[in-house]
């Protein structure tokens, strides 16, 4: 079947799909580089990509150090928040009343700018303590994770439920063989959102104060001392980590739910 013909043709097709984006990326860099030179833009307003590149190389060791520090915060928050979100979702989906009571609150809480609590949370756990950033990240990712998982567990095809009942499936079997697989695509959507949010949450909450080895602190300090190229280099580190995080989730999704229409893409009927 044509659908199984993934492989070499699939890879070259993907390359073909991403080519326009790659061309655009290079074009933006070139316009940036030469635009800055031509218009004689001041360094502190916008350093040229080559200057940022130099700053990146010069500070590589330090950037890796602070980048890894903040990545650990983001990862920790991601794991805590997602685990808690999934746990609460499973607990509430089991008892319909609980999920019906909690869902409106969760949806409301999801639209609260949780990052605004960063100074308060810093105060609770200590500004230097990475835990304070993890807690912020965990709270940020908790709500989308929980909401999506509850939806995935409850928005099940009624006919599929009837089928399970017809074959005398127990509640546990309905959960493991129907609700959970049904929830996986919803959960991966939440993981993708959470992956992006966790890096943003970690860096921005560091802007409100944090450990000297943190990426957000590095950015604010370098910017305060007019070393903008260094700040830009740090932002690139944050971007690389964020994109990598997202791509890892995407990869895990492909391996875990190859059957889902979001993964098999255009071949959906």
């Amino acid at each position, binding site marked *: *079947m044509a*659908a199984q013909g993934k492989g070499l043709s699939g890879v070259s097709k993907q390359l073909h799909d991403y080519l326009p984006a790659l061309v655009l990326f290079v074009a933006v860099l070139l316009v940036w580089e030469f635009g800055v030179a031509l218009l004689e833009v001041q360094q502190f307003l916008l350093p040229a990509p080559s200057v940022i590149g130099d700053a990146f190389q010069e500070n590589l060791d330090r950037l890796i150090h602070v980048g890894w520090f903040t990545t650990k915060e983001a990862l920790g928050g991601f794991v805590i928040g997602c685990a808690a979100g999934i746990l609460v979702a499973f607990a509430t989906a089991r008892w319909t009343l609980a999920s019906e009571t909690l869902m409106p609150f969760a949806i409301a809480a999801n639209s609260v700018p949780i990052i605004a609590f960063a100074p308060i949370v810093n105060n609770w756990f200590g500004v230097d303590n990475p835990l304070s950033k993890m807690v912020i990240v965990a709270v940020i990712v908790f709500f989308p994770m929980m909401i999506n998982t509850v939806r995935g567990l409850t928005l099940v*095809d009624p*006919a*599929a439920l*009837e*089928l*399970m*009942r*017809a*074959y*005398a*499936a127990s509640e546990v*079997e309905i959960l493991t*063989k*129907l609700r959970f*697989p049904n929830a*996986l695509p919803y959960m991966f959507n939440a993981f993708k959102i959470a992956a992006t949010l966790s890096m943003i949450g970690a860096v921005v909450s560091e802007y409100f104060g944090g450990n000297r080895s943190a990426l957000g602190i590095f950015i604010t300090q370098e910017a305060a001392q007019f070393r903008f190229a260094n700040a830009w280099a740090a932002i690139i580190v944050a971007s690389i980590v964020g994109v990598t995080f997202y791509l890892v989730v995407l990869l895990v999704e492909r391996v875990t*739910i190859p*059957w*889902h*229409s979001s993964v*098999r893409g255009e*071949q*959906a*009927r």
Partner: protein
Amino acid sequence: MIEDLQTAVVRLDDVDKVFNQGTGNETVALKNIDLDVRPGEFVSIIGPSGCGKSTLLRLVGDLVQPTQGEVLVNGKPARQARLDQDYGIVFQAPVLFEWRSIINNVQLPLELRGVKKAQRTARARELLGMVELSGFEQHYPWQLSGGMQQRASIARALAIQPELLLMDEPFGALDEMTRERMNMELHNIWRRTETTVLFVTHSIAEAVFLSTRILVMSARPGQIMHVVDVDLPVPRGEHTREETAYFEAETEVREWLRKAKGYRA
């Protein structure tokens, strides 16, 4: 009477089904339903839309409960029969799980029954052969056409070797050509497995071709208006559609359906 109880695969005794009882939009779906289905019969239920024929099937499967009266399957209450996995069921949609390969979909009822893996796989392969899906074991549902998906769902319903097969407009979503082919295949499966079939449809041709008996239902509240015995020889095939008895049965069903209020053919 007692002998009857033992031989009837399905028995409904004065069954009523009322939805939303005691509320403003109370609906009497079924009224005074008496029915006996004997082993090996192929009984079709036909009637106008909304006449409760699907509800009747769901009562037998214990997917809804009667408001009044008794439903027995294999001589036991419908609930017990469901818990004992006494029947297989096919819906209008194939209801295949998209995360399971075709063979794993077919195995599902066996899994729920706790059958060992090797045995499950062997049985599923055999069934896929029967519905002519050999070679598609490892495919996923979305890679199959609608007709093939429905064949897989029939294989799944037969997995537990049920004495009773409940089918709720299984070919309703298929085009005419595919439907006729599926009718032929179902007829052969029915002959080979000697399973008792309760079949909901609104196609007269399909009902006559497949059935030994056709129940014509009235519009809501659904009642069994008339029973047509189809005395066509078995095995049936293309020649069946040209026999006089076929036309006679078709005409009889059509006339009774016309009497059923609200029927528009």
